[in-house]
């Protein structure tokens, strides 16, 4: 390598200056976009949540301090709906995270074997991931149709030799949320599966060989080699799924509109209805700020769990 020219020499100066300018110029379009359409709206979310802003009113917004938060978190008028929605998000996460991660792990283990035709199977397991949720919800509306011709009712009727009487899956409070969960599981599990599959391929084969030499059986190898090797992947997948659970919107909006009687209402759905149908932007903003706080805590928790692992190993 040649020796660097002396600093300040006429040959390098223009270039250094070029770089000094090129950097900010190249970053400008994206950073301007992020500031204008992400950072500013987020600051506005906090700002709006402190005001009584309505879309349908010509009165200037009135400063509300923490009144919106008091309303959604404490007041008897609105907090019921909000906690119902937040509770549904929590319920969704509490069911979908363990079930989906376990299912994804199972599918990944099934695929991670030398069997003919694996790429074909993987294609099918992953395929729902590329479908827009709006379309999936539409197709599943036929599956959950309340009449005897609904796919699920028809299959269950056939399997029980007609003993099963048609059920209104989406129309009854007790089954509406589980139905939403089922179609979300079907759509999302392929995503977690390929992440876990990549994690499985990252576990060194020697570890399995060593365990086998030590006389470890299938189950023991799974407990002693596979699970510890996947720890970070599983933590990551579980937390991403949790965060996605708090963003739940599309399928609820299309299939149930939060009903019946709030059984499938979610924070995002409530926020959109509040902003849109009730034109109450201030209260909707307060809801999304609470949502953000939840997501932030989950993200920080994930970073903590994953770094801890790195420190240990």
């Amino acid at each position, binding site marked *: 390598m040649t020796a660097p020219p002396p600093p300040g020499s006429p040959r390098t100066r223009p*270039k250094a200056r070029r*770089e000094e300018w090129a*950097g*900010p110029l*190249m*970053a400008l*379009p994206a950073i301007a*976009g992020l500031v204008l*359409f*992400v950072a500013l*709206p*987020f600051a506005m979310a906090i700002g709006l949540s402190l005001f009584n802003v309505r*879309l349908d009113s010509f009165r200037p917004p009135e400063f509300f301090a923490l009144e919106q938060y008091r309303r959604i978190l404490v007041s008897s008028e609105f907090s019921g709906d909000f906690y119902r929605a937040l509770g549904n998000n929590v319920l969704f996460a509490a069911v979908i995270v363990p079930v989906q991660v376990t299912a994804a792990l199972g599918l990944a283990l*099934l695929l*991670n074997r*030398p*069997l003919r035709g694996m*790429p074909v*199977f993987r*294609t099918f*397991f992953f395929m*729902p*991931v*590329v479908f*827009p*949720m709006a*379309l999936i919800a*539409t*197709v599943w*509306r*036929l599956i959950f149709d309340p*009449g005897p*011709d609904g*796919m699920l009712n028809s299959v269950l*009727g056939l399997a029980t030799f007609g003993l099963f009487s048609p059920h209104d899956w989406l129309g009854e409070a007790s089954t509406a949320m589980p139905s939403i969960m089922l179609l979300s599981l*079907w759509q999302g599990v392929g995503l977690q599966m*390929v*992440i876990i599959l*990549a994690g499985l*391929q990252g576990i060194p*084969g020697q570890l399995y060989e060593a365990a*086998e030499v030590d006389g470890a059986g299938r189950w023991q*190898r799974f407990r002693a080699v596979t699970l510890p090797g996947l720890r970070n992947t599983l933590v990551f*997948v579980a937390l*991403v799924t949790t965060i996605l659970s708090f963003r739940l*919107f*599309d399928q609820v909006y*299309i299939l149930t509109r939060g009903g019946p009687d709030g059984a499938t209402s979610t924070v*995002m759905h409530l*926020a*959109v209805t509040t*902003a*849109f149908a009730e034109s109450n*932007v201030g209260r*909707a*903003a307060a809801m*999304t700020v609470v949502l*953000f706080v939840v*997501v932030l805590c989950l*993200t920080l928790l994930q970073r903590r769990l994953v770094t801890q692992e790195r420190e240990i190993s």
Partner: protein
Amino acid sequence: MTVLADRPTVSGRTRVSHPGPGRRLRPLVRSGLDHLLMGTVTLLFASPILYMFIGSLKPDDQVLDGLSGFVPRDLSLDNYADVFATFDDPSTGFFLNFFGTSVIVTGVVVLGGLVVNSMAAYALARLRWRGRDAVLILVLALLVLPFEAIAVPLFYLLNDFRNTMAVQSVPLIANAFSIFLFYSFFLKLPKEIEEAGRLDGAGPWRIFVRIIVPMSKPVFATVAILSFLTQWGMFLWPVLMVSDPSVRPLPLAISVYQGQPPFAWGDIMAFGVMMVLPMLLVFLVFQRWFVRSVASTGLKG
């Protein structure tokens, strides 16, 4: 494809420690059972998709018909023609309007995003300039913000631009996550690249376009695929911003369509097939990239 699926693991190897009469038969039975299991699981995943495809070719009243919805009978392409016939005036919108809106909005977000975000990432990863570290921290901080957390104020902020293609695309071009993906990739490229370029008298722009971009195809593919996937299915934002059928994207259009009686289910399924077909084709052709992108980043949206 082989990367993910075909690598044999020790746990999967056939065990040879069981001598006896079943010795030869056993692997055969096992592989048979195995395929049966895999086939059943595949059926669970494929059946709603199959149902949609078959339904799109059947008369409307034979789609919502229990298990016989799967029976391919009286097949025709009538439903596809019906979709175009149903959406035939400005009050309903035209199918090609929906499709065109989705293509244009997705195209602008994906292509614009590739250009703008890769440039920013290059400046952050490989150029030295005042304020760089502060900008980097801003980008990393914005990573935590899901779109849902800003949708409501963004809707308020851009209320005057409702019902345009611009409002559906421009705010989504710059993306902290895309910048982060490019940034991590550019950071790992060897330092000598720029030095060689500089000796030839090339400035940062030329080094970026001529050397860095051609070297970084994998990360461009990953970002393109992930943003295509997110954007083609984007629903929340159009729900908030679009009511005019002439700029209604496909996901919003199908949600309106399936919510208005009378329900011509065959037509609705045909609409669905046409909506997902571009995505499905890209997926089947670039499957390896799809799976790898998603697996490497683990995030959709």
